[in-house]
């Protein structure tokens, strides 16, 4: 289990991570999610003892990273893609790290097979593609057969086969009871891989939840209504305070009222409904709403709502 308590990192006046607290339980894949620049990598580097926190503490299975006698056996990490000397072979890179813990040469060969680099293990890493470099980095993380695995943007640069491979690998590692923390700025990827989500923006915790709970937090979802008397219903709904958009002839998209209220209103006026349902939130939408204020760079075109324009027309 990873336990992050009140972790803060400041660089001069800029605060990269602010009083961040969360725990990553064993036995499931936890997604560490946030826009670029949200402090994910800095947090991971502090967990791994590479950067010193300004204040706060991070422990892995009860000890700080540096307190582990055999850190590679306790925690495996991929923090930077292709952070290997280009003149060294994949095998020698793994071997040099294995040596620090007295891990046998056979373990290096095993890991090379696991990550699918055995055939190119003797080649200089400089000739590797981004995906191969990523596989080598994952090999480094797995080298000590660790209880905890921390991967920063593991699917970056992987082809679809590789993405599928890493997803399966992470799930099986979690199923073995290990602690798995992976970061991403892509909600869509996390939705497929992670069960538990820690969402950060501008160095602060935005959500510490499960995928299902996060979707459930979405409020004010549009209600989709189909009625032969749509125009009449639209008028009633506007009077009741809702915003109404005509999605197609006879089909309304209603916000500001829930599906039950819309149905009751239609029933009270004897208007027949052919369809009535609440549009489910996509994880991506929830994520965008959650992190909307904390993205460093964004375009301003996304927030043009059709409701507004229709309201003006009405």
């Amino acid at each position, binding site marked *: 289990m990873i336990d992050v308590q009140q972790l803060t990192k400041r660089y001069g006046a800029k605060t990269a991570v602010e009083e961040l607290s969360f725990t990553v339980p064993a036995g499931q894949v936890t997604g560490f999610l946030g826009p670029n620049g949200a402090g994910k990598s800095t947090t991971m580097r502090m967990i791994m003892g590479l950067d010193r926190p300004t204040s706060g503490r991070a422990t892995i299975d009860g000890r700080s990273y540096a307190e582990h006698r055999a850190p590679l056996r306790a925690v495996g*990490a991929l923090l930077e893609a*292709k952070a290997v000397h280009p003149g060294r072979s994949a095998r020698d890179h793994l071997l*040099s790290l294995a040596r*620090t813990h007295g*891990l046998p040469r056979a373990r290096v060969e095993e890991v090379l097979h696991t990550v699918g680099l055995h055939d190119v293990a003797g080649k200089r890493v400089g000739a590797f593609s981004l995906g191969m470099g990523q596989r080598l980095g994952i090999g480094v993380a797995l080298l000590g057969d660790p209880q905890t695995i921390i991967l920063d943007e593991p699917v970056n640069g992987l082809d679809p086969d590789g993405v599928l491979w890493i997803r399966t690998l992470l799930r099986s590692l979690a199923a073995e009871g290990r602690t798995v923390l992976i970061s991403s700025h892509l909600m869509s990827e996390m939705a497929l891989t992670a069960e538990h989500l820690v969402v950060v923006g501008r160095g602060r915790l935005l959500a510490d939840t499960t995928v299902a709970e996060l979707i459930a937090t979405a409020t004010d979802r549009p209600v989709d209504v189909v009625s032969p008397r749509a125009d009449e219903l639209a008028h009633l709904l506007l009077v009741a305070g809702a915003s109404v958009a005509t999605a197609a002839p006879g089909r309304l998209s209603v916000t500001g009222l829930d599906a039950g209220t819309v149905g009751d209103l239609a029933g009270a006026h004897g208007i027949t409904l052919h369809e009535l349902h609440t549009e489910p939130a996509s994880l991506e939408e929830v994520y965008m709403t959650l992190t909307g204020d904390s993205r460093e760079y964004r375009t301003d075109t996304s927030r043009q709502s059709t409701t507004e324009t229709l309201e003006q027309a009405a």
Partner: protein
Amino acid sequence: MSATATATAPRTTDPGHRADRHPQDRSPSPRQEEGGVALHRVVRSEWTKLRSLRSTWATLGLAALVALGLAAAIGSNLSSGEPDGGFGADPTAAVLAGTGLAALVLGVLGALQVSGEYATGTITASLTAVPARWPVLSAKAVVLVAVVAPLALALSAGSLWIGSLVVDGGLPFSWGAVLGSTGYLTAVALLGLGTAALLRSSAAAITVLVALVFVLPPLLPLLPWGFVETATKYFPSAAGESLSATVAGTAALSDAAAAGTLAAWALVPLLVGGVLLQRRDA
């Protein structure tokens, strides 16, 4: 999954029951005990890193070529017992001049051992594997000395041997000169390592190394201040020349002072670099 349940159980129970916690909950698993980080293992790791780069062998080859090639070229132009000022006064020192250039090559090798890791990002993996950090730099120094010192000894002795063949009238073999030159080469290699540990960038470290070893010593005496001239005697190259001098009166420092000076150039940047490595963010 059962291991997970035991590990997380104490967190979920009432804090009042903490005293009941089984003692084995706190002890690390046997799997973690069997192979920890140890200095001798880090030394093997650093040897693996050094030997697995072609540039290492190219650098060592270049150092040999420069030292022995210059010894042959310079020596063939000399004859002993014909003092004409300059190097002619000390043909042994003249023949060893090539090792002075080899020193720079070996200093670059030492610098790249650290700055190459920062440039490529390997440092992250290294410090993750050895979070105590100081063993990484110590092991690099051990491996560097183990590789450079024997080579330096061979090149120094080899230069004199070549000198004895090509210098007109022969050249007496001097163990003092050989050991002095060996010490100088090894010290400059360590100076490169220490400088890189301080500066972390290859370009910065190599620039400083070249300045200290080659550029500043002939430049400083031209400055109008007396203390600068004294300081020049304590630069690595001056100390190295003192140590390997064979003609009485040509040494600016006593052997002990020269050896101490070289040791300081070799170790002080390394120690300060080690302290900074501990303190800085990786």
